């Protein structure tokens, strides 16, 4: 079975280490991610101004393309794209006046009414495959890996678009358990990474990162598990700055959840592109004997 899939721009450049292991893993699981033949940027951030309809055009246009190709569900990998697409979809479902204005302007010849269901890959794994079946497919259980599931904001907020209980999410923890790892519960798992605020206040990046890393490591985590390229960027840079500023601060590997999935399914570490990660995850994996021996990973150009 194929699933209509929206990658998003960052997954094609900086976050290939989020996309490529996901595509390979889903193929191995028999649910192929079928990239939309035509798509544009999701809009990057959902505009909160009520009358700012022009910035809703990008996400809605993508949803219309999905509808036009006859798919009813759209899978996303990037938490930010999920958030933007899902919120725009809710607008198209719930606000008849804005819906008409947008459909009229977008001019794609169909009256879109929010029919497409936008889901995150974690929801596909949880609801369409199931943790039990996933656990059964694991070839390399990630035993002894103490991982802190970091949700950030956009998977869970606002409540209307949350893929899990926004106060007490468990989906990432259950996912990690299915892969044989030991999830570490820590109170900062839903704290904001700084998001786009760091554009205006670049120096604040360490202040956003500090409590998250302190909390994760004091609860015994060896690495952080992410779903969002923006979290990766902020936390990766944040901890590098912290290590420079603060003696004794130890950088922690950052994983995308899809890299762990591919690894646990026994796929080649090549598809994980660990060379793009922050915090040298390969040394941790080697230490735990979880990095299958293959010819050395070639850093890819670009």
């Amino acid at each position, binding site marked *: 079975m194929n699933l209509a899939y929206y990658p998003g721009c960052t997954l094609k450049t900086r976050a290939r280490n989020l996309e490529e292991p996901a595509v390979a893993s889903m193929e191995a699981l028999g649910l192929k991610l079928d990239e939309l033949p035509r798509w*544009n940027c999701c809009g990057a951030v959902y505009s909160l101004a009520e009358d700012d309809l*022009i910035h809703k055009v990008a996400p809605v*246009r993508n949803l219309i393309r999905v509808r036009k190709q006859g798919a009813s569900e759209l899978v996303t990998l990037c938490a930010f794209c999920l958030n933007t697409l899902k919120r725009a979809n809710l607008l198209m479902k719930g606000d008849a006046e804005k819906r008409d204005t947008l459909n009229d302007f977008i001019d794609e010849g169909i009256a879109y009414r929010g029919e497409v269901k936008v889901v995150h890959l974690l929801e596909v794994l949880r609801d369409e495959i199931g943790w039990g079946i996933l656990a059964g497919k694991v070839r390399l259980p990630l035993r002894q890996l103490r991982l802190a599931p970091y949700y950030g904001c956009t998977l869970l907020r606002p409540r209307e678009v949350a893929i899990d209980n926004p106060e007490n999410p468990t989906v990432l923890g259950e996912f990690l358990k299915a892969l044989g790892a030991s999830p570490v519960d820590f109170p900062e798992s839903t704290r904001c990474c700084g998001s786009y605020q760091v554009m205006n206040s670049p120096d604040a990046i360490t202040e956003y990162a500090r409590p998250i890393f302190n909390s994760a490591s004091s609860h015994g985590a060896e690495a952080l598990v992410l779903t969002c390229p923006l979290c990766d960027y902020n936390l990766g840079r944040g901890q590098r700055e912290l290590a420079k500023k603060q003696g004794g601060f130890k950088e922690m590997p950052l994983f995308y959840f899809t890299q762990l999935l591919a690894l646990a399914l026994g796929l080649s570490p090549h598809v994980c592109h660990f060379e793009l990660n922050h915090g040298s995850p390969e040394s941790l994996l080697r230490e735990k004997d979880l990095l299958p021996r293959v010819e050395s990973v070639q850093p890819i*150009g*670009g």
Partner: protein
Amino acid sequence: MSAKQTKKKSVATAVRQRTKKSTEAVVKEEKKVAARLIPIYIMGKRYEVPEGLTIMKAMEYAGYMLIRGCGCRGGTCGACGTVYRKPGDYKLMVALACQKTVEPDMYIAQIPFFPANRAAYDFAEVSAAPEEVFKLYPELFRCVACNSCTKACPQGIEVMDAVSALKKGDIAQAAQLSFDCIQCGLCTSRCFGELAQYHMFQLARRIYGARIVPRAEHLAEMVKAINQGKYDRCLDELREAGEDELKKLYQEREIEPISAGEDWKPKDTTHL
């Protein structure tokens, strides 16, 4: 000149003659021309012009002397971008003035040039990394996917898709999608995000051509062979041959048959 001949006379001739004659004579002349006159509006003013003319020729017929906003007159230079509307339709239409023939009641304005900053770069220093485009044209990320650029393209390019390709770092796709771009600037004139699409696409095509497309190995081999003098003897022979000899060689040359297969060779293989 017989009536029949007059009828046959091309509109172009009529236009040429018009410049030489008095207005009165022109009115007379126009009556004789076969082409029906239709009303068009150039920058809001009404003119009657023979149908079948291109917008550019119609403007000249109406008395405009174009020193900018016209170039190749063959639809490839991109100098004559034009916008128009027709009564009863809110849609803005676009065309190249040298290609599109006039239609009754068109409201026409030319946009021969639209300001757009071209980034300065030393191409030798530019790699094929997506970030090269991001750095030189950061306004790329102001695109809101409104698609006005695509609607404004007289070449039918999926402009917005090419912008999206650049955003996702797919320079090859941007280059291929924008291959027919003639840099008329109409996309840029309509852009909500104030992007300079046509300059970005030019950069994409340069990077694609120089850094992404695989080099043609046979070309390098052939250039090497030429430089090593493989063909010097043939050229010297031709240079020394007299006129009669050249004519004879030309007339008696062996032509590859249309049905020839890949392994076809001429009878005389001394120059291969």
